[in-house]
């Protein structure tokens, strides 16, 4: 295994920029908790994107200025947010009608593992000691039209996160459309991984060595 230390790949900020670049004008987008939230601030000028948060807000705006937080206006990560003019509130069954009914265009999620078939594992390591918690992740991957994963290419211990078969419990089967890592952008097409772009300094051979499943040149 190749250590992350040696890679001169994209920063988290650059990964989020790559995702943001691929979000089309007019899209309805749900951003997972954590790194995916960075994407909202990086969408190119001139595009209007509507953010959905599954706890009942369409038209989520940026974080409010300090002191202006409202504990009853939060996102799925339970952080304070704002609402744009033209936003609306709704209850949970209506919110998941948007998700499950394939009304949301893009969802950006983190990952523990992605398989070459597009299986995603991102909610549990299967550790019997851990408290299982799933939230809306399984609904999002089952219902959103396009699933983007944003993740480091390898784990902190240098194991590939992109694998032949996920060993962690699945969030969904054959659901991921594109993976953005610090090393590359990889599409899942017909249960196979196709490399779209590599970070500066990353060769196909290096990428292959850092990936646990066969890669195809795009």
């Amino acid at each position, binding site marked *: 295994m190749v250590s992350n230390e040696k890679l001169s790949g994209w920063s988290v900020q650059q990964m989020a920029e790559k995702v943001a670049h691929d979000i089309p*004008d*007019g899209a*309805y987008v749900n951003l997972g908790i954590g790194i995916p939230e960075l994407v909202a601030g990086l969408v190119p000028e001139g595009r*209007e994107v*509507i953010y*959905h948060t599954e706890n009942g807000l*369409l*038209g989520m705006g940026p974080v409010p200025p300090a002191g202006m937080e409202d504990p009853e206006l939060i996102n799925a990560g339970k952080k304070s947010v704002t*609402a*744009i*003019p*033209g*936003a*609306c*509130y*709704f209850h949970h*069954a*209506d919110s*998941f*009608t*948007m*998700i*499950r*009914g*394939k*009304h*949301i265009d893009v969802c950006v999620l983190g990952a523990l593992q992605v398989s070459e078939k597009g299986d995603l594992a991102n909610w549990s390591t299967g550790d019997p000691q851990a408290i299982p918690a799933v939230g809306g992740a399984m609904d999002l991957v*089952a*219902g959103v039209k396009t699933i983007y994963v944003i993740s480091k290419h390898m784990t902190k211990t240098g194991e590939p996160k992109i694998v032949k078969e996920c060993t962690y419990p699945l969030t969904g089967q054959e659901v991921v459309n594109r993976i953005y890592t610090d090393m590359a952008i990889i599409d899942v097409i017909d249960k196979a991984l196709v490399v779209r772009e590599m970070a500066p300094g990353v060769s196909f051979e290096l990428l292959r060595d850092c990936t646990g499943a066969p890669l195809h040149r795009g």
Partner: protein
Amino acid sequence: MINKIYSSPAEAVADVFDGATVMISGFGEAGSPIELIHALIDQGARDLCVISNNTGSGHVGLAALIENRQVRKMICSFPRSANSRVFPELYKRGEIELELVPQGTLAERIRAGGAGIPAFYTPTSVGTPLSDGKETRVFDAVTYVLEHALQADFALVKCQAADRYGNLVYNKTARNFGPIMCTAAKTAIVQCRQVLDPGGIDPEAVVTPGIFVQRVVEVQHPADESLLVAEERRYPW
């Protein structure tokens, strides 16, 4: 910029294709998008499957669409009413198909279609001819029938006010099937009395979130269908 406002009913329905499934809002005349329906008559798409609670009145609106022989099949709960002439006549002649669905099952099937639920169990119609041939199942000693989701290529819906994002509010009992039909159609086309600026609708009071709406067209003074029926008007005029 997101702007779902279309300039005319004609432009909004231009791509309805032959054989399309079209949901049409309204309970009787209340909430029926008469200007959109008339635009669809002008446009001429044929062989349509129409999902609507009723079959229209007199010779305008949905009745006129049927009379113009653009509808192959109706899915509805109550195909006859005091002023319905067109559908009964075609039906008796065997020239239009009918799928009769209890009103609540119709609503729930449409809601399921919008919500990604392919099928559900309901107590309605068990032991009646409307569940003939349908799968039943017992939960907790009660028998239920399996019903399947309804989806559509287009929905034609009438509302009170909209913004460029497609957020909608309705007027009184004209709301009826509009909100669920918007969710269940690939392309929801809405006529509103008034287009407001974003934020012009209270975000707590939005009934249909814009995500469910693809096209909005302003019709400031929609026709009063009951008046047209009383005057025995026919469309095309």
